[in-house]
């Protein structure tokens, strides 16, 4: 199994390289970071512009720049120079990945729980009021623009705080400015408090598709021969559901969850923007606005690795959940 995982991860390398070339080319053609200096008044001295261009390697040809970037990354673990001279891309990515991952991870966990719960209930009580209720809510969540929902949640949070005169919901940032001076418990509650609204918003837009998925998977299993057999042999319905049906019905969800990680990362861009988090999403937007090719490549690499790792985890989960599957 480990050999399989390693092999899968290795296959990811050429995929990542192809993706990075693609991003490098389109990002390089999207404009020159030095151009913006020309609009300043008084103009930025020519020497300054030349030094910046040289520092960013803009005086070299495209292939040369890409090879240099890749070489430095592989040999020295160096992500290259950002357009902001004192910004260390690697350091930034490390800090921000943790911020985004904790949001994505918690939201995914909640979304899975919610999806399983509503999907299973829907399937077990097919065509009941419960089913219709969950279905409608699911479809609604599927149809709401993510930032529209996030903005509404933010307004609601502020309104609640104002009406109760307390600071229950945070709408700004991922932690308090005094965070470092808190004790451990304070740090945990601080982070948790700031996470509430963004997590709700990301969870809601994520869970809906999964719950539809879970519902049909569950229906399929419930209608399958072996569950009928188990029932006819006198196993009580709850036992059947949990031990047999649910376990099998979770398999496809595990896959889809992992495959969707890329999409959730995308959703996090919106959530982070609305709630002013400094995570991967806002880093992406900043990099694009600055025309910061190396930052963009770093971002792509890190999130690409996350996607691939999650895919491998999904495959492994698959094996855990479904005893018929063995990887070699």
């Amino acid at each position, binding site marked *: 199994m480990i050999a399989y995982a390693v092999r899968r991860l290795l296959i990811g390398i050429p995929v990542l390289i192809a993706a990075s070339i693609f991003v490098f080319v389109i990002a390089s053609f999207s404009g020159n970071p030095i151009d913006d200096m020309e609009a300043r008044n008084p103009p930025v001295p020519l020497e*300054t512009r030349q030094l910046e261009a040289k520092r960013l390697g803009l005086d070299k040809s495209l292939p040369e720049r890409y090879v240099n970037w890749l070489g430095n990354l592989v040999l020295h673990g160096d992500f290259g120079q950002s357009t902001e*001279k004192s910004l260390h891309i690697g350091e930034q990515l490390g800090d921000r990945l943790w911020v985004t991952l904790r949001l994505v991870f918690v939201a995914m966990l909640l979304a899975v729980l919610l999806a399983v719960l509503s999907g299973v209930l829907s399937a077990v009580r097919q065509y009941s009021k419960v089913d219709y209720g969950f279905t409608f809510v699911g479809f609604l969540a599927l149809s709401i623009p993510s930032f529209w929902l996030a903005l509404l949640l933010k307004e609601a949070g502020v309104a609640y705080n104002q009406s109760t005169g307390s600071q229950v919901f945070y709408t*700004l940032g991922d932690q308090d400015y005094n965070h470092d001076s808190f004790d451990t418990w304070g740090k945990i509650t601080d982070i948790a408090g700031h996470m509430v609204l963004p997590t709700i918003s990301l969870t809601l837009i994520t869970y809906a598709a999964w719950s539809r998925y879970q519902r049909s998977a569950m229906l399929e299993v419930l209608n399958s021969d072996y569950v009928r057999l188990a029932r006819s042999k006198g196993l009580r319905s709850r036992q059947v559901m949990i031990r047999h049906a649910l376990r099998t019905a979770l398999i496809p969800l595990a896959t889809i969850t992992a495959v969707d990680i890329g999409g959730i990362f995308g959703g996090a861009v919106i959530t982070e923007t609305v709630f002013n988090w400094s995570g991967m999403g806002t880093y992406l937007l900043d990099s694009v606005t600055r025309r910061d090719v190396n930052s963009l490549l770093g971002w792509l690499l890190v999130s690409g690795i996350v996607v691939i790792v999650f895919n491998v985890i999904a495959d492994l989960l698959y094996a855990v959940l479904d005893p018929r599957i063995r990887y070699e």
Partner: protein
Amino acid sequence: MRTRSKGLTSLIAVTAASLLTLTACGGGSDSNKETPTSNAGYADCEKSPNTCNSGNTKPGGEYIFGLEQSFTSWNINTEEGNTLVASQALSGVLPQVFKSDPGGTLQLNTDLMVSAELTNQNPQTVVYKIKSDAVWSDGTPISADDFIMGWKWNSGKKELCTECTPASTSGWDIVKSVVGSDNGKTVTLTFEDGKTYADWKGNYSTDGLYPSHLATKQGFDLSKPEGVNSASNWFSETVPTWSGGPLIIDAFNKDQSLVLKKNDKWYGKVKPSLDKVIFKFIIDQGSVIPALKNKEITGMSPQPNAALVNGAAETPGVIYRIGHGYQWEHIDLNLKNKYLADVALRQAIFTAINVKSVIDKTYGVFDKAAKPLGSHNFFPGDPNYKDVVSPTGQGSGDIEKAKKILTDAGYKIEGGKLITKAGEPVPALRFRHTKGNQLRATTAELVQAALKNIGVDIKIEVTETLGKTLSTADYDMIIFAWVGSPLYQGSAEQNWVTGNGGNYGNYSNAEVDKLTNEGARSLDPKKAADLINQGNEIVAKEAYVLPIAQKPTLTFTYSDYVNIRDNATQWSPTYNIQEWGQKAA
């Protein structure tokens, strides 16, 4: 979406230049009593911008000031670090020789300086006398060495600093020497022979002083250009643990907040009363008002828009004020376009545009004092301000007059299309504006609608890189803002003289060149302004650039804090950060 504002250096306020002073002088004709530009608590800012919202403070408390961007470099003497937010965030840390008050007058920082005076005209010489008790937070005196390092960073000369990347070298590239004496407490700055720099007060004021002794302690040899460069980089990358001002950095959460506490070694008259001042980075404008209501910030001075002004006005316990800054929006024509090379067409275009109605749909929605700007060099309130645009009829939206100009010049409007004397239809003009700027998009649409009346089609295109679009003159019409300043001599020369840096649209007139050049070199301010205004009159008549309005500024704060007031200069409301505090009961 996100805007980066850089290019601080030019924002030097030597004389009063804001609209608020104009109304104070009684020069303002309109009095919008029913629509105030500020609410109670800030109401007297109209009359006394420098003292409104003042009061006694009680010790303790925290103040959370929002900033619109985060920043990456701690050295504001570099291109990267030269941002408004960085200078605001460091205003309690970096010593500066002059600071501008809200009224727009540069005041000597008497905490730091005994004096800073021009002692000789040729060679121009400035003598700085530093107070003996002015020290860095480790007790080391602030000295001439710090002044020398700042000069080397900004000089743009490789023999002083190998790879320094200053945002601008103006005022520094003609400095011949900076010499310390009197145990480092007197600094003599001498310019090169025959060269003058009228705005010498900007040096060490638009930027700030950094502790050179810490660079030396790091092992950088400041007598060598490599050492100076390393020092610049080190100060750029390292979060300051030092201070030469009333506050010192307590904690920095990257991209989230900067926390400052009192500097125990602060030598100034007024000791800070607040325990902490926190700068919070709020990049998304939509987050500002929720954060204010939620008390996640207690004050801010963001780029104004209708929602921010309303939001601030509606939040209980918050006072706000709209001021008028040093940036002005304008529409430029590109004279390289052969149709626009004809002055009659240009005049007709500008005449057909109704600047008043553009303002009504943009700044006017939240800034009742916004009105058309009539000069390309000065702002209302400045004694040199002279409205050269209105007499030409440009910006009036007078379609009949515009048509008359055209028919007099031999144009015809047939079937809604404008035809030149040569019988050619005038092709659609490309109007460009920066992407994501709603107000400019609205302006573009209004111009489009107005010019349809004289048979001119407008094709609106956004630009991602304003700098490139301007420098390559890739437009027929474009709207953008200049950061104006009382340094009108330099900018006038830059913008209106044939072939110069800011003259993107290729305007050329020998008479204007002569007047402007002469004005820019004159050492007599009155005469200089007269010459520049004379040149300006010709520029206006020839319809090259149509000024729209001064950009408003906005400041709001919870009213239980005092001494926080709008400051439209680059020193911003943080100019008196040590005086901020909780209102004493």
